[in-house]
C-alpha cells in the first residue's frame, strides 16, 4: 500500500529560482492494483516516484509505503520496494548473477536463502543461459531481465516502475509489461509512470494525470471517460493537461 498526502518537492535552480517539481500530490495505491502516473516530460512523475523510493526526500507532505514513512524509516521503505527505471542501470563489470546476488545481500538475505531465490528467479525469467555473463556483454532484453531479477530478489510488496519501457524495442517492452501484470496477480502494490497512453489503457486500474507537479485528475479509465466525455485517453489527457501545460517545463 502506498499513501501520499500533500507530497511536495522543491528544487533550487540558479537560473530559474525555486522550482516546485511536485506540488501537493495526494493519492492512494492499493495492493493488487496498478496505479498509472501519466504525464508529459518534466511533469513531476520521476520526482514523485523517487520520493516514494526514498531516493529523494520530500520538501513537504508525507508518504507511507507499507505503513513506513519515507522520511522517518527510509530503509524499511526500501526493503519493501522494488524500484525499476530507465536510470537504474546495471554494473557493467559484474555478471548477471553477481548483480542480483549483490542486491540480495544488501537486502539482508541469508546466503542459503539468497541462493534459492536466485535459482528460482533465474529459472522463472529464463536467465540461466547468461547468468555468468558480464552485464556489459548482455543484450537489451537480457539487461532488462537482470534488472527485473534485481528488483524481485527480496520479494518486495511494492513495485515502483519509472517509465520502464522508455527506449526499449517492442519485444523487450512487452516482457516488462507482462512482468508488471504478473506483479498485480501476485497481489503486489504497483505504481507505474509513463507517457505512453496505450500502456496505461492496457495495464492500469487507476490513472493519475500529473502536470506541473500537480495531480490534475484521478480515477479508473472508465471513470475518466465518463468525467471528460471522451473515449480516447489521449484526448482526455490533452483536455486535462492543456490549460496547465508550460513548454519550458518539458525537460
Amino acid at each position, binding site marked *: 500500500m502506498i499513501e501520499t498526502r500533500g507530497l511536495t518537492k522543491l528544487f533550487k535552480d540558479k537560473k530559474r529560482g525555486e522550482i516546485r517539481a511536485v506540488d501537493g500530490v495526494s493519492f492512494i495505491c492499493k495492493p493488487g492494483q496498478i496505479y498509472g502516473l501519466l504525464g508529459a516530460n518534466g511533469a513531476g512523475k520521476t520526482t514523485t516516484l523517487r520520493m516514494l523510493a526514498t531516493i*529523494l526526500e520530500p520538501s513537504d507532505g508525507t508518504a507511507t509505503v507499507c505503513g513506513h514513512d519515507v522520511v522517518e524509516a527510509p530503509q524499511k521503505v526500501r526493503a519493501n520496494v522494488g524500484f525499476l527505471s530507465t536510470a537504474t542501470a546495471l554494473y557493467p563489470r559484474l555478471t548477471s548473477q553477481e548483480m542480483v546476488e549483490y542486491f540480495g545481500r*544488501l537486502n539482508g538475505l541469508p546466503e542459503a536463502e539468497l541462493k534459492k531465490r536466485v535459482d528460482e528467479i533465474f529459472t522463472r525469467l529464463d536467465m540461466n543461459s547468461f547468468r555468468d555473463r558480464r552485464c556489459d556483454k548482455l543484450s537489451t532484453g537480457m539487461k532488462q531481465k537482470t534488472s527485473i531479477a534485481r528488483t524481485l530478489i527480496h520479494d518486495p510488496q511494492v513495485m515502483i516502475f519509472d517509465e520502464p519501457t522508455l527506449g526499449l524495442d517492442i519485444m523487450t517492452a512487452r516482457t516488462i509489461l507482462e512482468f508488471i501484470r504478473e506483479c498485480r496477480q501476485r497481489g503486489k502494490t504497483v505504481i507505474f509512470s509513463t507517457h505512453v497512453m496505450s500502456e496505461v489503457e492496457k495495464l492500469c486500474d487507476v490513472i493519475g494525470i500529473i502536470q506541473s507537479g500537480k495531480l490534475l485528475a484521478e480515477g479508473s479509465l472508465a471513470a475518466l471517460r465518463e468525467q471528460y466525455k471522451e473515449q480516447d485517453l489521449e484526448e482526455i489527457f490533452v483536455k486535462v493537461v492543456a490549460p496547465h501545460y508550460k513548454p519550458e517545463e518539458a525537460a
Partner: protein
Amino acid sequence: MPLQNIGTVYRKELTDSLRDRRTLISTLLVPLLLFPILSVGFAALAVTLEKKAKEEIPKVMLLGGADSPGALEALRASKKIEVVPATPDWKDKIINKEIRAAVAIPDGFEASLAQQNPQTVEIYKYEGELKSSISADTVEKELKDYRDNVIEARLDANHVPSSILIPFRIKQDNVAPPEKVGGAELGGIIGYMVILLCLTGGMYPAMDLTAGEKERGTMETILSSPISRLDLVLGKFFLVLTASLVTAALSVVSMGVSFWGMKQLKALDVSKNPDAAGMQLHIGFTAVLSVFLMALPLAVLFSAGLITISLFAKSYKEAQSYVSPLMVLVIIPAVAAMLPGVELTAKLALIPILNVSLLCKELVTGTYHWNFIALIFLSTCVYAAAALFLAVKMFQREDVLFRS
C-alpha cells in the same frame, strides 16, 4: 548489520575494481614499475651518458701562441684532448659542436712567463652544453698542470722546496653511519614518492566509484536498495583506501627492490672504481615500515578527499578535471619538503602532506623525533577524519548526487 553491509559493498567494489583496467594500472602496475625505472633505469642511463661524455676525446683549437711553442707543445702532447688546426670560424664550430672548446694563448706568452709577468689564457666553451663544459675543464686541468710545472721550475731555480706552497692540508671525513648518508640523499624522494602514489593509487577507484557510477546510471540503482548512505559511502571509502594503501605498499616494496638493484649496480662499479664505494645506499627495514605507517592517515585523508571531490562530478571526465589540480596541490608541499634546508618544526608539523613528507625524510635517516611523530600522526588523523566526515555529508546531499 551495518558492518555486514559495509563488507558487502566493499566486496562488490573490490570485484568490480579488479576487473577495471584503469584501476589495475594505477594501483598495481605504476608503483611496481615506477621505482625500478626511475632509480635503476635513470641512474644507469645517467652513469652511461656521463661516462660516454667523459670518454670522448674532445677536439680543441689552439688560437695564437705561434711565439710560444713550449705551451703549444704541452697541450698537443696531452692525450686527453685532440688539437685541431685553427680556423677563423672557431666560434661557429663550438656552437655547432664540431669542436668542443678553443684556447687563446696571448702573443708573447712564453716571453712574458720568462719575465714573470702574469698572463691570461682564455678557454672558450658552449655554456650549458655538457660535453663542451667537460672539455673546457679538461683543457683547464692540462693548463694547470703546465702552470704547476712552471712554478716548480721557478722554485727549483731558486732552490726553494715545493712544499712551501702547501703549509698544511685539509681533509673532509664523514662520521654519519652509511644509512644516514643514504637516507639524507634519498629521504626526500622516498617520502615524496610514497605520498604521490598514495594519491594516484586511490584516484581511479575514487572516480570510478562515484562519478563513474553516476555516469553509468548505477547510482540510482544502488540508492534504491535498503543500504544506508553512510554504509554505502564507507564501503566505497574502504575500497579506495585499500587501493591507496596497496599502491603505497607496492611502491615501498618496489623501492626496496630498486635500492637492492642500485646496490648491485654500484657494487659492479666499485670493482672498477673504488671511489664509488662511499656512495652505497643503506636504508633499513624499520625506516621503510615507519614511512609506510606514517602514510596510513594520509591515505585516509586522500581517499576521503578524492571521494568527496569526484562525487561532485557528473562524469568520469569531469572528475578527472577536478582531481588533476589536486595532484598539483599535493605535489607542491611534497616537493617543498625535498628542498635542502627545510627542516621539521612544530609549525610545519601541522601542515598536511608537507609534515609527512618532512618526517619521512627524517625517518629514512633513522632519526625518530617522537614528539613530532605523535603531532604529525594526530594532526593528519584529524584532517583525515574531517575529510571522511565531509565525504559522508556529500553523499547525503541530493543536489550533489543528482547534479544535472
